[in-house]
């Protein structure tokens, strides 16, 4: 479903991805690991279409759509969801209002039936419960005054409702305590399905204890330098990234 071939990308004109190849099939969970500055977050943002993240070569194809040709909202409508590393606040816009607008746009584009307000509210409450967020959060401004952990859980809550075809999670584990980590992992696991691809971008192996990946890739200097199964992540934890990149790193 996701085919990335020889992808080159630049951020504000600086080359970050330098020929990346990756194939994600439906039903698979991939973990992208690597040291800081290796291009992990860049990959997530390039795929989602953030401003100033520019594809300079190669291709990323999602279900036949060349992502480079789609606006960010069209990528979302094609089923791509990015759980942000640093979710931004939108003061005064309630979570519920935001979800309603998002779901209307995406479900309409995908030809799915529209949810009426009652259904939406019921589903949203269920999703909140799944990630241990009080339903009161639906009334609050998007991420407004949320703690770091609440913001991350809010992202997962949105993801549960959006039912994406491809979910990208950008360092969703960073800054979470063990309870929150397990909650987030439960949410992600509940989304695993033969119809859906999941890509976890993470620095640490710890998340992968709870979301067990099918494939693990190590990214370094804009390329995937090693791929393997879930055991690769454990090996990385023991040996650090220096073992692969040839550099000292205190991960």
């Amino acid at each position: 479903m996701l085919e990335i071939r020889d992808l080159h990308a630049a951020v504000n004109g600086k080359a970050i991805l330098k020929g990346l190849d990756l194939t994600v099939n439906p039903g698979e969970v991939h973990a992208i690991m690597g040291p800081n500055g290796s291009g992990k977050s860049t990959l997530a943002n390039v795929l989602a279409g953030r401003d100033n993240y520019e594809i300079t070569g190669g291709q990323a194809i999602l279900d036949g759509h060349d992502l480079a040709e789609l606006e960010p909202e069209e990528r979302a409508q094609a089923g791509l969801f990015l759980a942000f590393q640093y979710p931004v606040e939108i003061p005064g816009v309630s979570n519920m209002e935001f979800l309603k607008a998002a779901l209307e746009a995406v479900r309409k584009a995908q030809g799915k039936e529209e949810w009426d307000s009652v259904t939406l509210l019921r589903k949203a409450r269920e999703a909140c419960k799944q990630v241990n967020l009080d339903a009161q959060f639906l009334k609050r401004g998007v991420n407004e005054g949320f703690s770091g952990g609440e913001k991350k859980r809010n992202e997962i809550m949105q993801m549960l409702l959006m039912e994406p075809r491809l979910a990208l999670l950008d360092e969703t584990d960073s800054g979470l305590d063990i309870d929150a980590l397990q909650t987030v992992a439960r949410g992600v696991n509940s989304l695993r399905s033969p119809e859906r691809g999941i890509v976890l971008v993470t620095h640490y192996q710890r998340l992968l204890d709870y979301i067990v990946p099918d494939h693990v890739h190590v990214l370094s200097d804009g390329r995937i330098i090693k791929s393997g199964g879930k055991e690769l992540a454990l090996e990385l934890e023991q040996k650090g990234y220096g073992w692969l990149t040839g550099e000292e790193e205190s991960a």
Partner: protein
Amino acid sequence: MSSQAELDKVIRSEYEAGFTTLVESDTLPPGLSEDVIRFISAKKGEPEWLLEWRLEAYRKWREMPEPEWAHLHYPKVDYDAISYYSAPKSMEDRPKSLDEVDPELLDTYKKLGIPLHEQEMLAGVAVDAVFDSVSIGTTFKEKLAEAGVIFCSISEAVQEHPELVRKYLGSVVPKSDNFFAGLNSAVFTDGSFVYIPKGVRCPMELSTYFRINEANTGQFERTLIVADEGSYVSYLEGCTAPQRDENQLHAAVVELVALPGAEIKYSTVQNWYPGDENGKGGIYNFVTKRGVAHDNAKISWTQVETGSAITWKYPSVVLRGDNSVGEFYSVALTRHAQQADTGTKMIHLGKNTRSTIVSKGISAGKSSNAYRGLVRMGPRAENARNFTQCDSLLLGDRCGAHTFPYIESKHPSATVEHEATTSKVSDDQLFLCRQRGIDPEKAISMIVNGFCKEVFKELPMEFAVEAGKLLEVSLEGAVG
């Protein structure tokens, strides 16, 4: 909230209210003189004192210079090119009910979304609609009469309640207060009058819709609201105007009198035609709005300003009585070539008086948006307090936002707090919305609505929805 389909329809629509109703008018030739004022006064069958009052205002106005201090640029208005009286002809014989009203007039209101017939049935809101200069339909009068509330056109009040009009007209905004108020005092044709008796809570929200119709006809509404001791009233004002090429002058005066213990809540959604992209054909809106709050009284202004080529407007409160409260909540949105210089004045005279100012300015296109606010603590204003919050949001980089706060304190125990912020809709916020599938225009509108929430929550429910919709329409094409 409206469904997506409705919103889409609204977003696509050009200025829907841009049409002209073909009603024969009994219109004066352009120009202003004492004869014109005599004509207006005679046409309305006014008593001698009111004619004299108008003439006095006119004589003073002729000697007043037009103000130039505002952060506004516009060609000089030629006051002799304006016609000062216009009434739909079919009004010569007053219709006894709405059924007798010119169907074309009623159709005009339908296009504006205010079908009077339906509003009669929909409980809650009484409408005194001003079409050009003469009121054509007043509803719910009986229900109000039961409560002793007087809600009628000011012309009618002059006839029916001369003692009240004579006592309070010009008591808050004197006829020589300022250039535009002076002009209004000389030539005002109609407007609303409200009187709430002692201790009465007005049983419904009162509402007026204004509309400019005749080409080159200035509109000079005069509104007077008197809330007697311990009473309460919420008043809604909304306006819209048809598209045309000449600039149209609008100089209204609104006076509020809140007697001891009374509360007046005055809400406005203003959508005058703003002109095209270059400001051509837009309304010039020079309004004087002021209230006097006596002991323990409260006056609250809430406004959503999206229209007009030029807005010059400072709804103010004179906190005359001890423990009186003044509030001003404002959203002003400018786009294209619109210019707004708006804000408030809080004049603290009494002890323990309190005022709150929350102003949200949104600028898009190449527009200019200025907040101008005066907080004055008088020598007797012991323990008076003011809090001002003034936020500006910029969309794009060709627009401007300006803040001109004036603070004068003559009492050492008075407290004045002022907070001001200027921000842009951030790329990160926009990206979050777009990543969730929301198109940029909808996203901007949502973010801006969120920015305005503190003000919108002060509006009555239906009005808040309408205001949100207005912003949505107004922000069309504001992205990028």
